[in-house]
């Protein structure tokens, strides 16, 4: 099952849209400045619809099947959120609207900032960052700016556990700081001796994920935070796993100074096939003035409760600056706001309780079937190994690919790196027991197949639109554009040294 490229169904002279007449007295176009041609497809509206609907059928998605992708929180994306973001008053609102003309949007953003801060026990939040990675960059730049603001110029290192997502060390480098990797102990917790040895006055801070990337709550987390603070460093929490924490613990109360939230994970905004998202950042009183801006502030409070207060956009006084051209992915703010409004505080706590319940249920059912490197109560996800004693040549990847034949998306593979052949499983709270039971049965069947008929796994998937794809060829014979590029005969000088 493959679909032609849209360019392959194009025919000269065909068009899908009709546009109005110019309707004003015309001027001559500046001929010297114009391009000759524009190589876009020429297709009808029906052809466009069939093409993209057919393409959509080639995707696995939450709405078509279970998506237990660890650390990604592939929960149900409520439909009312989609309708809300498309309301004319939001969709047609210009980003540089005057404050008086955008009070509805600003009020919504203000509430969202306030709720996110409260949920994590922080003083304030910025909802500007477009993704978790951008939230991380904001947080690390804030830590850097904090030390510089105190004229403490020697702090250039950020400690990152070896269990961390690759984004953490990449963020540190991007911020112009140096990532120092810390080993984990056998439970996947921070090795306190290694931490003690690494701490000195060159440490700006530490990044850590809670619950850890192995899905467990580090029981020594308070010790870790205290030690880093005593050494003059600040604590950054990667909030990728926030779905386990709502109403369970407030990171700000635990002692974290700054964290990012993923509105596209915890707060149900859709992943969109790889974005857009929102990586909001929360901070305590030490760092709140350094948040990326603009943030929404109440400009005039109201005395009469029937009057709405006046909101405005402001840059925090010591802000690290702008991260986006405008005030963030507002469409995602609307979706997350709607989600939080419907659940309320108690409901969000129920979300985390059930996310943890579902993960532990699947973990309990698969114990003894797959090796579990950390065999204890987990958070909202858990890790198992895709490698069996006595069965050689079967990898986590083979199990993952075989799952596709059963209409189930694979778990996260090969992460965290400290677990060989890792399969990181996160069912989320929106899956019902029957769906989880089916997943468990399929995983058991695959474990049996690995022993009886390993070739079935190695050659999987069998029922997907395409078979295993040749990634090496894609990189070697690089083809990233299907059209011939016109040769402009420009004099070009290669750059650099």
């Amino acid at each position: 099952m493959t679909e032609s490229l849209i360019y392959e169904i194009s025919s000269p002279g065909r068009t899908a849209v009709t546009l109005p007449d110019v309707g004003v007295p015309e001027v001559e176009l500046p001929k010297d400045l114009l391009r000759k041609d524009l190589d876009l497809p020429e297709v009808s509206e029906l052809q466009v619809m069939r093409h993209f609907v057919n393409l959509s059928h080639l995707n696995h998605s939450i709405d078509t099947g279970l998506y237990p992708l660890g650390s990604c929180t592939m929960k149900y994306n409520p439909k009312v959120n989609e309708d809300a973001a498309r309301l004319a008053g939001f969709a047609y609102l210009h980003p540089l609207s005057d404050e008086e003309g955008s009070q509805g949007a600003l009020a919504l953003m203000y509430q969202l900032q306030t709720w996110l801060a409260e949920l994590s026990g922080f003083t304030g939040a910025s909802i500007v960052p477009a993704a978790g990675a951008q939230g991380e960059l904001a947080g690390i730049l804030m830590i850097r700016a904090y030390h510089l603001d105190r004229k403490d110029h020697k702090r250039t290192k950020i400690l990152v556990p070896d269990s961390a997502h690759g984004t953490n060390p990449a963020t540190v480098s991007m911020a112009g700081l140096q990532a120092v990797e810390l080993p984990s102990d056998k439970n996947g917790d921070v090795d306190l001796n290694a931490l003690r040895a690494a701490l000195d006055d060159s440490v700006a801070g530490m990044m850590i994920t809670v619950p850890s990337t192995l899905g467990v709550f580090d029981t020594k987390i308070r010790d870790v935070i205290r030690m880093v603070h005593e050494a003059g460093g600040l604590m950054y929490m990667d909030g990728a796993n926030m779905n386990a924490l709502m109403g369970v613990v407030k990171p700000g109360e635990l002692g974290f100074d700054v964290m990012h939230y993923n509105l596209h994970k915890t707060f149900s905004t859709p992943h969109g096939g790889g974005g857009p998202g929102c990586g909001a950042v929360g901070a305590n009183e030490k760092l709140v003035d350094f948040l990326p801006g603009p943030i929404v502030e109440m400009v005039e409070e109201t005395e009469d409760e029937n009057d709405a207060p006046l909101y405005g956009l402001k840059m925090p006084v010591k802000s690290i600056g702008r991260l986006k051209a405008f005030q963030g992915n507002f469409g995602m703010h609307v979706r997350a706001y709607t989600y939080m409004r419907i659940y309320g505080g108690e409901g969000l706590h129920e979300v985390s309780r059930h996310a943890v319940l579902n993960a532990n249920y699947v973990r309990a059912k698969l114990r003894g079937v797959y090796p579990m490197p950390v065999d204890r109560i987990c958070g909202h996800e858990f890790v198992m190994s895709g490698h069996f004693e006595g069965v050689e040549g079967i990898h986590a990847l083979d199990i993952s690919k075989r799952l596709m034949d059963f209409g189930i998306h694979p778990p996260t593979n090969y992460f965290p790196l400290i677990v060989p052949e890792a399969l990181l499983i996160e069912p989320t709270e929106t899956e019902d027991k029957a769906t989880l039971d089916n997943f468990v049965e399929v995983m058991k069947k695959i474990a049996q197949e690995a022993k009886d008929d390993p070739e079935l796994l190695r050659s999987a998937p069998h029922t997907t639109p395409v078979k295993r794809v040749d990634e090496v060829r894609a990189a070697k014979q690089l083809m990233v554009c299907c059209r011939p590029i016109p040769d402009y005969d420009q004099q070009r000088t290669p750059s650099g040294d």
Partner: protein
Amino acid sequence: MSYIPHTDVERQQMLAAIGVTTIEDLFESVPSRYRFPKLNLPKGLSELEAWAEVQAFAEANEHAGDYALFRGAGAYHHYIPAAVNHVLLRSEFYTAYTPYQPEVSQGTLQAIYEYQSMLCALTGMDAANASHYDGATSLAEAVTVALEASRRKRNKVVLHPAIHPHYRAVVRTYHQGNGVEFVGDTGKTIERTTADDLIKLIDDQTALVAVQYPNYLGNIEDFSKLVEATHNAGALICFVANPMALALFKSPGELGADIVVGEGQPLGIPLSYGGPYLGFFAVRDEYVRRIAGRIVGETIDHDGKRAFVMTLRPREQDIRREKASSNICTNQGLMALAACVYMSLMGRSGLRRAAEISYQRAHYAAKQINKLKGYKVNVGAAFFNEFPVKCPKPVSAINDFLIERGIIGGYPLEGDYPKLKDHMLVAVTEMNSKDEIDLLVEALAEAAK
């Protein structure tokens, strides 16, 4: 209201299978002092109640659905064919994750590949990535590509002051920690700086020169001398382009650009108060392996069938960790899909037609406004669909008057360009009919009184 499907019976069965009696038992590793804090959050609502509240927020805004909008400055109100939204609402697209597993993500992967191909056509470049967060972060990533291309031996970047002020701010935010020197956009005469004025700033430390096309003030400048000087100095030149203008005007590739970035929002994405938008990013062949972010490539599957996959993965943060040049993990996938569907619908002739209507109506508006007493437009300048208007009063006073007439006026320029006191930046698209333009002109005349 809840999206949690569990019944009481199921909860009990699940707890029994785990071997605990209550859900609370699952949280014992959280220090008890901090466990289960009180949340000062409102009570939950039904969908019906929440909808009413959200709708009230939406209705409190003055937007282009109710008002005639003449504001651009980096975000433009163009027509979006109905079919675009119908494709975006396919939940097979919007509820999917980043396409790490190509066998079950061919829909997303092929759409991105087609988007990349269309972007190459539009920009005249050899390769485009799957997108960045927005136009501003695309420019920040272009700086990184240029620094890397010089193997970090050069650390100077020349920014044209008529690049969007917010883009220049974002670039500085991104690079505040790595010692890049930004020149060209500071000083007392930035309002008058031309592309040729930047030539004297280029030296053997310059990694990148960046310009905007058309520039933030709407002008289409002649960059030919600047491009030549940049290349002679061994530096790269980046064009920040408006994709709608590229439907009509020469592509940056034809004009000698090495990198083309910009805001893809005009390509079928609603204004949405500033996001989500689409940062497009395209380069010449020699820099393709230095691009950060997702890139989709064509390959074959085990049976030899055409297939698509994310390629050049070893550049990325999850593999290279601290050695990666950027931490970006995603793109604006759904927004790239919107642009892909939009460009398919508009096609070879439709996109150019929309650009031409915008051009003609903008030139009509400029001419009519310039005739008004007290207003001045440089009608002799080459521009696409946006132009500064010198007003007889502060822009805020003019706009307060216009809003009463159902018009959202231009964006004030004085805040970013102090010498452009009482100047507003007016944008016109195919959404503004002649009647709307005439209404604007009439209201401006009255506002001057």
